[in-house]
């Protein structure tokens, strides 16, 4: 089980005064009724919950700045929240924290298709950014699977990815600038045209900093012309090793698919039962999608077919219609829902070098047997970003602990083969205590120094990302903080 620091009693005891100060600063934005703050007690990592001291829902950068300045002055911790879809606990509050939520900041500020950019308030959902430029035949490329609900501010905090980032990159590669409020209420503009400012690449380090450096209130995003069309193929294999080798061969050959998705047999069977997508019953399958006009798609798929046949696939199913494309994607897109039918699950997010795929899948199988918990694998194979799903029973005593222990072993394995703990979900509280398996003390110290500059008192989302014992001296140095609160 993850630990969280004890709430600061000197903050809790001033609860009423803090709420009043926030209310005086921004009328109509403060929620402090415990029946209502409970809605903010967790994000999508719902095994961990804690209602905050209060929640504020500002509408403008200026309001965020006023609220932050008050929290800073009163020494109150702040937890930023986009849409609360973090799988890592990035938006989970502590009892002494004020949650600053972006849900009322959803405006489009500017669309400039000639400059290929859109500027939005950071509470706008990912999908509605694409929606705002759809009529002009543009789209915003990063597409995390929560894109219907997740906020751009959260995407920036976690540097979110998605299925199509093999070709288009992740959030950081599609972010041109932000307006951000620092913990002391200072407003800064980072980035610029082409994402480039005159000094250090502060935008680059803010993206993916998990809401620990500031609250992003507005973002300028790169938009791209929509491709004329896209078409997937489904390729089935009788072993995961062969499927992995085929992925490497496709990439090596210079075709650049927009997505290469991988599912193993436990996942294929579960999704087939759930969605009846018509998948072959095989050990592993790939969904490879390419884009372009019809003849361009044909050209790419012919090349992929030539490569795939050398791996003796048990099935090569090329979509011939919109409906067939939809059916090929159906199982993949309902995979998480299908897993939910099998029980509760933990979704991991480690990344490995593509070359280590067969070895890692075999070791995960061994670990799964050792722990007596089933693991299904569904992931973005083109970039090595795995999503092993560990199935457990939340009502069985000890099952969650066992599932977490298995998860930690799988993530250690990812690091051991040259990969990392998290490819697109973020560290949050979930992987916080594993950070020392990937990074040495000096590596973590260098990262914490960045936070020292942006948030010297460590008030902003401070119990995340870094193991609590590693960040303790900084958090305890907070003015008025209770020492050794962890």
């Amino acid at each position, binding site marked *: 089980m993850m630990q969280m620091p004890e709430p600061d009693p000197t903050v809790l005891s001033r609860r009423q005064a803090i709420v009043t100060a926030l209310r005086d600063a921004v009328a109509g934005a403060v929620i402090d009724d415990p029946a209502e703050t409970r809605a903010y007690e967790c994000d999508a990592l719902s095994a961990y919950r804690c209602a905050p001291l209060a929640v504020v829902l500002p509408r403008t950068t200026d309001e965020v700045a006023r609220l932050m300045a008050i929290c800073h002055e009163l020494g109150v911790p702040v937890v930023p929240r986009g849409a609360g879809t973090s799988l890592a606990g990035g938006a989970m509050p502590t009892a002494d924290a004020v949650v600053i939520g972006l849900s009322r900041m959803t405006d489009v500020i500017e669309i400039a298709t000639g400059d*290929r950019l859109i500027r939005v308030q950071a509470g706008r959902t990912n999908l509605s950014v694409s929606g705002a430029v759809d009529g002009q035949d543009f789209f915003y490329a990063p597409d995390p699977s929560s894109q219907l609900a997740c906020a751009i501010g959260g995407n920036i905090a976690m540097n979110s*990815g998605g299925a199509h980032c093999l070709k288009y*990159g992740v959030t950081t590669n599609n972010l041109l600038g932000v307006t951000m409020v620092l913990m002391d209420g200072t407003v800064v503009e980072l980035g*610029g*045209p082409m994402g480039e400012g005159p000094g250090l690449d*502060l935008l680059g380090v803010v993206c993916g900093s998990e809401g620990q450096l500031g609250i992003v209130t507005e973002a300028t995003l790169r938009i791209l*012309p929509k491709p004329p069309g896209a078409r997937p193929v489904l390729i089935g294999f009788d072993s995961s090793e062969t499927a992995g080798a085929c992925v490497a061969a496709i990439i090596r050959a210079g075709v650049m698919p927009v997505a290469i998705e991988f599912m193993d047999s436990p996942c294929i069977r579960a999704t087939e039962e759930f969605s009846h997508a018509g998948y072959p019953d095989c050990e592993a399958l790939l969904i490879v999608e390419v884009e372009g006009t019809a*003849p361009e798609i044909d050209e790419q798929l012919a090349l992929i077919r030539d490569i795939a046949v050398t791996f003796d696939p048990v099935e090569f199913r090329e979509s011939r219609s919109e409906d067939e494309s939809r059916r090929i994607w159906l199982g993949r897109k309902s995979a998480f829902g299908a897993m939910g039918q099998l029980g509760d699950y933990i979704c991991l997010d480690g990344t490995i070098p593509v070359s280590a795929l067969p070895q890692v899948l075999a070791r995960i199988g061994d670990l799964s047997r050792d722990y007596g918990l089933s693991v299904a694998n569904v992931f973005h194979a083109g970039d090595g970003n795995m999503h092993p799903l560990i199935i457990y029973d939340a009502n069985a005593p000890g099952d969650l602990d066992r599932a977490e222990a298995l998860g930690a072993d799988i993530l250690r394995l990812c690091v051991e083969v040259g990969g990392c703990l998290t490819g697109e979900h973020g560290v949050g509280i979930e992987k916080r205590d594993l950070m020392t398996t990937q990074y040495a003390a000096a590596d973590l110290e260098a*990262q914490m*120094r960045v936070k020292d500059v942006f948030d010297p008192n460590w008030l902003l989302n401070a119990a995340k990302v870094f193991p609590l014992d590693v960040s303790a001296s900084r958090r305890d140095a907070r003015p008025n903080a209770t020492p050794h609160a962890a």
Partner: protein
Amino acid sequence: MRPDSEAALAETIRAAREPMSITGGGTRLRPGEGQAPRLDLSALTGVTLYEPAALTLVVRAGTPLATVHQMLAAEGQMLGFEPGGEPGSTIGGVIAANASGPRRVQAGAARDALIGVRFVDGQGEIVRNGGRVMKNVTGYDLVKLMAGSRGQLGALTELSLRTMPMPPVRRTLCLPDLEAADALPALTAALVGPFEVSGAAWLPDRGALIRLEGLEGSVAIRATGLRDRLSQHGEVAEVDDDPWPRLAWPEARDGDGDLWRIVCRPGAAASILATLPRPVSLDWGGALIHVRLPEGELPQLPRFEGHARRVTGAAPMVLPAPDPMTRRLDAGLRRKFDPRGIFLGAD
């Protein structure tokens, strides 16, 4: 000083008492840089790992850029961000300058291809960030912070880069009659259409240049569509040589006066060009302008989003002056990573 290992470099930095200028090949120094005794990283050479099937290259920072180009080309790959340079340019220098060529409009900048770093900070501490996989959000992204930091935060020792397959076919359309300002609408039209343009630039002796890359059939289809789209902007032809290396190295030190580099929104480029003499080049669809001005002269620019920097000449100069809040953050980071002020850089 020219240490030949990361450990020796760390020792040199720990022992340093006076400011030093970190350099690779010293081919892209700007005003104010390289003034202190050099800490020369060009002896830190060699490839740690190259896995073409994973599009991954891990290389020590002093490795010549030309060596990297050759090694990748032998496997049919390249650096997607198309960095230019001169003999002596190192891969570390490319990264420290975030040097990115014409393909930035399609494939991103150097900082986008960089997936891991090792560096030595101002206390002589060895720091690692990122790794060798392209999707990695484990902890803060110091990789991006180090790219383009021009030796102000640390001495880069090893870099992990995402490589790209070399496209089998490459074709360049041109509109030779267009002057810089008239080229802007044509470049924009190319970039906003479904053509997957991999270069959109202008040169004084070539006019507007637009590049398409990919599989043969695909490039042919897109070239036809693009020609059609561009015909309203002027006479469209196709070039039979390769003008792009010139654009990848716009900071070549071979002209009179001071070279200025302006980054702006393409939509603002016309009003900026109206205040300038004929530029040396435009790239990135008009978002990047290089222009020569008489020595010491400052451009009289309109208010615009972006910045202009003098890249050759006597003294460092950025217009408009960076705002005090971001300067404060920059200075704070420099103090944290280099508390003794050992790494001399231009402000």
